[in-house]
């Protein structure tokens, strides 16, 4: 096993274990901070798929934006919220069992589908169109954004502005007049 595979499987295991801890741990603050670990190890896996720019974007947007926002929302809601969080001690509910069964069944479904598909034989994966380790993907992304994907890019910018206005509108203080 060469070092590349070793590091990849290390980060893969780290992703799954930290994600499992995030959903199973009781303390919400801890689970939000563990979410950091999941995000960073996912960024490492993006690097292994030769998508450096996506990895950097992931770190900047998730670790810099989303998580801070989550912590912010968490701190803004006061102590009663914290009290409600620790009340999940009431045993193993049927709700949890059903959810676990659905998730495991779905996992089984996807994993059997992946194992039974002969992925190296898919034709469009063999077209010798593979990103090499010395290719400048950021250059390609810049050109593609402004040429082939200009319409989705503009739509995303309009959508972002809508989301910004919507969030500011929702979070404003209501006037008691």
């Amino acid at each position, binding site marked *: 096993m060469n070092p590349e595979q070793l590091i990849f499987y290390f980060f893969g295991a780290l992703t799954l274990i930290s994600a499992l801890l995030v959903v199973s741990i009781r303390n919400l603050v801890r689970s939000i901070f563990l979410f950091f670990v999941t995000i960073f190890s996912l960024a490492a896996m993006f690097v292994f798929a030769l998508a450096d720019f*996506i990895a950097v974007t992931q770190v900047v947007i998730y670790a810099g934006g989303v998580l801070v926002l989550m912590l912010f929302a968490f701190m803004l809601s006061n102590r009663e919220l914290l009290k409600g969080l620790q009340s999940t001690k009431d045993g193993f509910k049927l709700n949890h069992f059903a959810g676990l069964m659905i998730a495991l069944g779905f996992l089984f479904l996807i994993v059997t589908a992946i194992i039974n598909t002969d992925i190296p034989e898919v034709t469009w994966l063999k077209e010798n169109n593979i990103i090499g380790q010395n290719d400048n993907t950021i250059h390609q*992304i810049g050109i593609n954004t402004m040429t082939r994907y200009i319409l989705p890019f503009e739509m995303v910018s309009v959508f972002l502005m809508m989301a910004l206005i919507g969030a500011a509108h929702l979070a404003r203080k209501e006037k008691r007049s």
Partner: protein
Amino acid sequence: MIPLSHFMLISAGLFCIGLYAVLTKRNAIQILIGIEFMINAAILNFVAFGKFDKFEGGGQMFALFAIVLAAAGVAVALAIILNVYKHFKTIDPAKIDTLKD
């Protein structure tokens, strides 16, 4: 060279963990984290397949768009959660069962 199916297996695991969180958690912020896991699993698949699309770069471009949309969604969802908390004094989705009043 990591085989493509290993990326897909890890992404499948992450997706199911997110699904479990969405189905069973009784706290809106944790459900949001579950949704983030599912979106991230999808992005991992995008990126893993994008490796085989050098010239058009569809996988990486749409991974970028998905990250941006997820971030915008989180901003709006957290604003809604704060408002719901102000109104109902709880963010347990099971207890929030009215639209207004």
